């Protein structure tokens, strides 16, 4: 199977959407495209596992394809997938399909909406499979305009401010990434190919500088404290599918970059900054959780909680142990699905109650039991209940962190673990407030439970978190060789 | 009193150039501004001719260059005056400070 299929399907779907006449056609086309993408991604997983078994060499990048694009300048359309990539692609397809389903009730400028959504997805898919730094940066930037427009046109609240803030802060991150890439290019023998760069031995000083640039740059995308402030505003102003994508996928681009670019190419830099990363991510974990406690708007709650959760994956990376990094990747995937589900449900609630303020809602369990249940499930996943993906990944990160046998590492691990309580507090506070209590029927609106499309979206994502939560072994097996390779590079110093 | 040498002439042309600039910075009448620019150009001519005479006596490029400058300056002046006339039609004035609508 050609990996380019992963790119072609969204492009074709976008083209088809462009040709559609009615809104209904647009929606069905987008759905068909995203389901096809989902199918291809699942197929990719199985093919990947089979291929890996055949080749025997576990840490290989498979399905590689390389076409010259601007080859004189070192730019190739070079794609390939390793285990982490496959995991990310699966995640993105899940969120995309669910996002399309969750956006079924969009009535305003339907065609443009789905077009932008597909473009956003294209950026993410391309980013994950790029094996060339230029290509990677291209896809990273590709999503700037879709994000901005999705928020500023279909958003709510102070959408202009949020859209700007998001776009500009992410641009700042990109600027740092750009510089980092260029420094790598000039010092690494004038090539953008990740594979070639990985063989170059960079000087320690350069590694430190470039690592800082790349890690902070990607860190902005993944809400590294203190560069996280685009997250709450951006997520809360975005339309449902936008938030799902922003929190579920876009933030993961950063994490993926931190791991697969910054840490992989610059192991010495990773070692050098390990402590700082750990401190920042622990601050992010606790501080995000504490700030969440004070939020009253559901989307803000989830946005701040995303800051806290994503910091777990950064913590795992900073710990530089096999288990912790494995946990970091799992946390990215897990959080992606979970937060998408959360935002989807918040969107459903908002559509029915026209408010996102928790004090204005009560007893939704009575009026919309399905939505309430899903809300509760995503909350439970968020607070790390066994059986859901959050538990597995957070525990893996923490266990991996514990491997480091020093007072510093142990202390921060305990601090990070303490956030689990805070998470429970804010999740349950929100959940009990809006789901339980006497039902407050919002005035004139006849409240209905989720419709088929919404149900499908919710079930799709719930299946994802339960699947990972109950059978995590497939995921660890998938990413293990790649993490091992990163570890090998770090340990080789 | 010795015969004037290169440096005298260069100093003179530099002074001329500065005078032109000073006029350009301070005068308000557009025609005067134009004349100031002509002064600057003339100082350049002076330079070129002097270099030809004192430094590179075997060459004539400076001489020819100054001829071209004079010609082009004439064309430039013609065009500038046309524009100034146009400005006068629209602004009823050829004071440079009257035409400051476009700013910031």
């Amino acid at each position, binding site marked *: 199977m050609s990996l380019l299929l992963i790119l072609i399907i969204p492009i074709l779907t976008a083209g088809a959407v462009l040709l559609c006449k009615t809104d209904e056609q647009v929606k069905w086309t987008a759905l068909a495209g995203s389901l096809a993408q989902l199918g291809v991604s699942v197929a990719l997983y199985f093919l990947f596992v089979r291929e890996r078994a055949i080749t025997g060499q576990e840490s290989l990048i498979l399905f590689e394809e390389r076409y010259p694009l601007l080859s004189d300048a070192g730019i190739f359309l070079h794609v390939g997938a390793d285990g982490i990539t496959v995991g990310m692609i699966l995640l993105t397809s899940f969120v995309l399909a669910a996002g399309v389903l969750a956006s079924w009730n969009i009535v305003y400028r339907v065609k443009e909406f789905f077009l932008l959504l597909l473009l956003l997805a294209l950026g993410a898919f391309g980013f994950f499979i790029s094996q060339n730094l230029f290509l990677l940066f291209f896809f990273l930037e590709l999503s700037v305009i879709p994000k901005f427009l999705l928020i500023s046109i279909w958003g709510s609240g102070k959408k202009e401010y949020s859209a700007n803030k998001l776009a500009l802060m992410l641009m700042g991150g990109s600027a740092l990434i750009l510089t980092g890439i260029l420094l790598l290019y000039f010092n690494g023998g004038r090539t953008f190919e990740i594979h070639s760069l990985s063989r170059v031995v960079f000087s320690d000083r350069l590694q430190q500088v470039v690592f800082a640039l790349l890690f902070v740059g990607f860190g902005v995308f993944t809400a590294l404290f203190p560069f996280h402030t685009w997250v709450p505003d951006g997520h809360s102003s975005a339309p449902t599918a936008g938030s799902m994508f922003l929190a579920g996928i876009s933030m993961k681009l950063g994490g993926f970059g931190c791991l697969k670019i910054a840490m992989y190419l610059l192991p010495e830099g990773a070692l050098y900054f390990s402590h700082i990363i750990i401190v920042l991510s622990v601050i992010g974990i606790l501080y995000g959780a*504490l700030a969440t406690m004070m939020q009253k708007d559901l989307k803000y709650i989830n946005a701040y909680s995303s800051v806290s959760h994503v910091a777990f994956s950064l913590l795992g990376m900073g710990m530089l142990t096999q288990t912790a990094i494995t946990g970091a990747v799992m946390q990215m995937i897990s959080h992606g699905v979970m937060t998408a589900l959360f935002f989807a449900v918040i969107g459903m609630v908002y559509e029915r109650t026209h408010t996102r303020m928790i004090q204005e809602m009560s007893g939704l369990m009575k009026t919309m039991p399905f939505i309430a249940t899903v809300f509760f499930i995503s909350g439970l996943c968020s607070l*790390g209940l066994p059986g859901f993906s959050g538990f597995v990944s957070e525990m893996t990160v923490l266990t991996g962190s514990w491997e480091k046998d020093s007072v510093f590492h142990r202390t921060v691990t*305990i601090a990070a673990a303490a956030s689990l309580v805070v998470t429970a*507090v804010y999740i349950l506070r929100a959940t009990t407030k809006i789901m339980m209590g006497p039902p407050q029927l919002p005035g004139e609106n006849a409240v209905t439970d989720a419709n088929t499309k919404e149900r499908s979206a919710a079930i799709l994502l719930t299946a994802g978190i339960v699947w990972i939560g109950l059978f995590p072994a497939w995921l*660890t097996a998938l990413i293990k060789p790649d993490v091992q390779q990163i570890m090998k590079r770090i340990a080789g110093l | 009193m010795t015969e004037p040498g290169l440096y005298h002439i260069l100093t003179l042309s530099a002074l001329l150039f500065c005078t032109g600039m000073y006029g350009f910075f301070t005068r308000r009448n557009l025609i005067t501004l134009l004349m100031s620019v002509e002064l600057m150009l003339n100082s350049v001519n002076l330079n070129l001719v002097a270099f030809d005479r004192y430094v590179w006596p075997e060459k004539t490029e400076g001489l020819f260059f100054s001829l071209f400058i004079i010609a082009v300056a004439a064309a430039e002046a013609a065009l500038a005056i046309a524009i100034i006339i146009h400005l006068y039609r629209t602004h009823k004035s050829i004071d440079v400070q009257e035409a400051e609508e476009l700013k910031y």
Partner: protein
Amino acid sequence: MIYTVLVLLIVLFPLAGFLFPALWGRSLFKKSAGPLTVVLMTFSFLLSAYFAYLYFFEFGYQQGAYRRFLFPDIPWLEFSGALAIRMGAYIDAVSVMMLLTVTFVSLMVHVYSLWYMKHQERYAAYFAYLSLFTFSMLGLVLSSNIFQMYFFWELVGVSSFLLIGFYYQKPAAAAAAKKAFIVTRFADVGFFIGILILSFSAGSMDFETILHKLTTPGSDALNTAAAQTFLGISALSWGAALVFMGAAGKSALFPLHIWLPDAMEGPTPVSALIHAATMVVAGVFLIARLFPLYAITVPGVQEFIAWVSAVTALMAALIACVQTDIKRILAFSTMSQIGLMMLSLGVAKYEAGPVPGYTASLFHLFTHALFKSLLFLCAGIMIHFVHNNSIWKMGGLRKYLPLTHLFFLAGCLAISGIPPFSGFFSKEEILLAAYRNYFPLYVLVLITSAVTAFYMFRMYFRTFWFYNLKGPTEKETEIEVPALIPLVLLAIGAVLGGFIPFGNFVTSDGHRMPFHFDVRFSLLPVILNLAGIFVAMWFYKTKNKRSDIVQEKAWKLYLLLSEKFYVDHLYEFITRKVIFQVIGRSAAWFDKNIVDGMVNLSGEATQYVSAAFRKLQSGKVQLYALYFLLAILALALITILK
């Protein structure tokens, strides 16, 4: 192989009982969820009974001791090296006993709920949750891996949350559910870190290996672990103490007990199952699982456990004396009894051969499960009849609820340790263990026991005697026949359970332990207990004002007790005032004003600078030329100066 299938089936039946009503509870199983789960639970119970039979009498007893078996043992999630979460069933006498207890009580509660929850909204959901709980609890008791136990530990927590908050429209229920979850969650973080310490010290997460490595004196793991200290206490002690913290949270030991009384907002059968018989004793079970570790490696922590449990036992008993809500009295009594069980583990000295304290603890766990669930189920009938929880609203119920009266009395006698009821035997052994190893605690246990007798009979007399309730206008049936069965069975258990030779089955090392009975030793506690009962009778048998007088005289003490030693207030202060108002608010403030402020500031600063530079573009062509010249001069100057 057959055993594996058996164990799996025992666990999977409740899981099915959760899944079917959960997925199709609104359509297919709207009415039939109850019977369905009852049938499934019956299978589960019968299989576990059969399995227990097989274990105790067929394959478990080999070469003079009960052996341990790992039935299915599947790697679930591998960390690095030897650290892995494995999902397995750890079969030994304790877990088989627990299996039997859990499935039995659960089945009883299921059956009882058929009557009790009839016509309730979310009927199917209720049974789904019950089954989910049973499934998780079974997973917990079968855990072969400490992380696996944590997994199910959390799952029982959430089932408990769901069931406490079952009447979700009641704000109090929602708050109680939340509180229960958060408090236990807090303890669980300690548990989790304890797990990390222990399993990293032992290099494994399996109970078997942990116990082996960390209790063999002189082993490498033990030496390295002992070398690490934190705040002057060895890492292993920390680990063990933190694991106990988790146990304390789940088992509602002081100071993590505050959630249990509130948890009584849930439906009464749930209280019987979860908050009396099974889930709350998970802590005891956990400590029992790791008993050798505590007893051999960290005796300091063990002593600590003993004291904490003693304090809990006495404190809860004292508070129970002034409570008015029938379920809360039972809840405090549960706390107190769990304290006793834990205390028994805390005082048990490790010795070659079976440890009596260990057996005593689990014996009490077993009998307590029977009589406490009986008491709760009776309380359910009473509440159902009176439509109120307060014992002040009851009185003279013996006329209206004759059967309940009988059962309740049996339960009260059992818990008060009156021979020959079951509680007597188990409590006797605890007393014996304390007496042998730690005399001050023996005194505390004696007092607790007497107080227990007092408050139980205070409740009994106040509700069934005292004065005659004005008879209900319409004739209400006491109870339907199906719901009667569990009461009868449990009552039989409560009365006769003590005669089971428990030491023959469940001991610390698998060897059988002969049963001792010494009348001279039993005399003192029984007299004290009887004294407690008589005091209660004097106060409450007939309508009088004696209790009020005492209450007025000792109002300070009364207030202290009725406010539960102000522990709740302290928590309230810490969470609301400190964590929310100070830490949370300042974090939010910091984010909004400082971090976000920096971003906005940089935006505004840019705008400001932009505005400040505006003058540069003055519109004056002469100035443009001047700047042109100045720029050249500046460049020249800079390069020359350099």
